[in-house]
């Protein structure tokens, strides 16, 4: 009983905080008239459906951004976990490539845009995938590596007494133990990823939410269109994060259990 009540309270608090955000937005737009209000943004969204920019319906832009983040996210997850594992279990590999990784890691993904465009062009999604991939992979590598190298020695000792070889230890002990940390890295990576999606689309794309946002600066400032883009990014990224946490819960049933 009390548990149900508690969840209800948190639920109400979450709704309240979203309402508060809308109120602040609304108040800011009331004070500064160049800023579109929530109402004007909704209205702008429906106008966008009626009059698509350059003949492309909103769904095309949303799907373009979603496709880019999902493809890059999938590739970065596979590569990031792989790299993190290699750093974690191969000392020679770590000594050779960790310095390179450490040097490149703090470089913002957007700094690569000119080179990537020069090599892969503006047309097609390859250049966008690469930028977004760079944005996502760093956090996944770091988290995977950190978690693997900090595995409780007791687990490794137990694996050894149970007769595990190196590969079995990785598959049954080190990796599953790291899944929560890997997911945390994926979530961090996703937020950098969305940053990269919007930036890459603003600079080099003919469709996508970032393209819409860029269009809001093209003629007379269209802050309502900018807000449409902001809300779309917020909704899309919430959706992706939500799906990711559902997958995490399915993969890690032991994390949800009541501790006796």
């Amino acid at each position, binding site marked *: 009983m009390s548990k149900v009540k508690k969840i209800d309270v948190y639920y109400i608090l979450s709704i309240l905080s979203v309402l508060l955000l809308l109120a602040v937005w609304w108040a800011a737009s009331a004070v500064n008239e160049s800023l579109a209000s929530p109402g004007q943004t909704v209205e702008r969204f429906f106008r966008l459906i009626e009059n698509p920019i350059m003949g492309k319906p909103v769904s095309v832009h949303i799907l373009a951004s979603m496709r880019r983040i999902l493809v890059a996210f999938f590739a970065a997850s596979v590569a990031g976990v792989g790299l993190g594992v290699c750093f974690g279990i191969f000392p020679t590999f770590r000594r050779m490539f960790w310095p390179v990784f450490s040097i490149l890691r703090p470089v913002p993904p957007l700094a690569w845009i000119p080179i990537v465009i020069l090599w892969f062009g503006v047309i097609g999604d390859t250049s966008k995938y690469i930028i977004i991939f760079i944005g996502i992979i760093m956090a996944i590598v770091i988290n995977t590596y950190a978690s693997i190298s900090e595995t409780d020695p*007791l687990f490794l000792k137990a694996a050894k*007494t149970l007769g595990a070889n190196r590969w079995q230890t990785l598959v*049954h002990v080190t990796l599953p*133990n790291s*899944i929560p940390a890997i997911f945390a890295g994926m979530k961090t990576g996703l937020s950098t990823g969305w940053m990269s999606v919007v930036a890459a689309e603003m600079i080099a794309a003919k469709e996508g939410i970032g393209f819409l946002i860029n269009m809001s600066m093209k003629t007379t400032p269209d802050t309502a269109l900018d807000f449409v883009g902001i809300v779309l990014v917020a909704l899309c990224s919430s959706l992706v994060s939500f799906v990711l946490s559902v997958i995490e819960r399915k993969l890690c049933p*032991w994390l949800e259990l009541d*501790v*006796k």
Partner: protein
Amino acid sequence: MAGTGCKIKLESVSKSFDDKIGRTAVLDEISLNVYENEFLVILGPGQCGKTVLLNIIADMEQADSGTITFDPQSSGQTGFVFQRYALFNWKNVLKNVELPLKFKGAEKEQRQNTAMKYIEMVGLKGFEKAYPSQLSGGMKQRVGIARAYASGNDIILMDEPFGALDAQTRYQMQDELLKIRSKEKKTIVFVTNNIEEAIYMGDRILLLSNKPSKVVKEYVPDLERPRKNTSSQFMELRDEITANMDLAL
């Protein structure tokens, strides 16, 4: 060594560690025999080197000098039961107990049958699908014991297996382990710092000194099982061991 009933023979095993302060001698020429199917208790004060000794027997650490010889009929592999359980949180009870068989490449059906047999033996039937975080400390250690048995090794090393349990559960687990042991014979090396536990459990007790530790004395409690810690013989032996045991540093 075959035919003597001696499972493990340690001769003059010494071990020191280098640290910032200098060199710490932990084991000082330890010699001992572990006989087939006996319940050997190694009793010593905290920090005297009991875990290091077990690690050396389990081939997890190397001795500086001395020899360890296993009965040639034994695989030389040992099962291990840890004070902090060392269960894999991400695997349920069945998967934890199956794991040593899986590592050996056993077929799924054989794995499950063997694991279920030991899960039943430790009294956890019905909990196969539970995750470790859902179990009490006593139940976790039952899983730890089942897993060590499932490894199929005829020697099981237990490092203060009940040290993390509350007193009540501890007594219960002591009886449980004696029961398990009567069902399936294994050679057990059981480490503890608790004198009463040593007398209650052991066929034979080896008392270690503070580090650098040596074997100070051997006791063979001539007490009928189940032993009663209120019997006069029990208390006499307890007083005698207490008089000979160093206080933990």
